[in-house]
């Protein structure tokens, strides 16, 4: 069974924000909600690294653990989704998430904070696959169309990888073996519990 994951290869990310734009466009994400964003570490310092961050669909998702109304669920492929009809916009998930993934639109049911919105791995929500209701609430369901997340497919340098974790680890392993550096994968251990098996730093194939 496939286990859907994201990997961002910091050696390749050029901070073009193509993934952010692709996500915004594909899912028609409202103004002020950032399902995906690019973070630069040591900005301006030689050797700075950029990574694209969104919901990582964690193996042991903290958002699921803290949600008081149990609005989260996990698909068979390991994608963490939520039901906006159940969400009360309390924001607990926002405090629990190590990636800052949960977003809250400015207008909504509870005062200024609406129902939570986050990356769905382009897998929609509990509404019927590909329906208009699903699109309005969660965005496009590309997975049910046999496609991968728009952000990963749109990445021009192929820094952001999305898909079956085994295939992604295999791709990264090949890259690290070829270039002999850049085995570090930010967020992988936090989200999935262990680092992908990559050759030792400096190794050449």
């Amino acid at each position: 069974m496939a286990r859907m994951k994201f990997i961002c290869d910091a050696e390749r990310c050029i901070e073009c924000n193509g993934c952010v734009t692709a996500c915004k466009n594909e899912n028609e994400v409202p103004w002020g909600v950032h399902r995906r964003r690019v973070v630069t570490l040591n900005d301006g310092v030689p050797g700075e690294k950029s990574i694209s961050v969104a919901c990582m669909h964690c193996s042991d998702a903290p958002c699921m653990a803290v949600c008081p109304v149990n609005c989260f669920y996990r698909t068979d492929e390991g994608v963490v989704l939520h039901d906006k009809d159940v969400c009360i916009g309390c924001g607990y998930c926002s405090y629990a998430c190590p990636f800052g993934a949960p977003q809250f639109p400015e207008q909504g049911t509870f005062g200024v904070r609406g129902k939570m919105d986050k990356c769905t791995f382009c897998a929609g929500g509990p509404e019927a696959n590909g329906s208009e209701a699903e699109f309005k609430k969660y965005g496009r369901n590309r997975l049910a169309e046999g496609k991968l997340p728009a952000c990963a497919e749109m990445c021009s340098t192929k820094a952001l990888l999305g898909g079956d974790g085994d295939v992604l680890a295999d791709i990264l392993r090949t890259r690290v073996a070829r270039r002999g550096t850049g085995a570090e994968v930010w967020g992988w251990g936090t989200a999935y519990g262990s680092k992908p098996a990559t050759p030792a730093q400096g190794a050449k194939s």
Partner: protein
Amino acid sequence: MKKLFLILSTALLLSACGEKPQGMGGARGDKPAWDGTGVAVFTEPGWKAGDKNSWLLALRARTQYGQNEYSRTN
């Protein structure tokens, strides 16, 4: 009369002990992605809706061809 009053008042008092569940019931179930959307125009060819294995294979192939340029350039 007194007995009837006692029975009725006891029933009334006991009814307060029952509490209706106030939970939201959690998230609804979702249909699996390999069931497809039913919209042929947006669906990628190469797999059959409802066939989990063909969907998985199509996605794996898409990941390799789309995101692993080493499989194409070398």
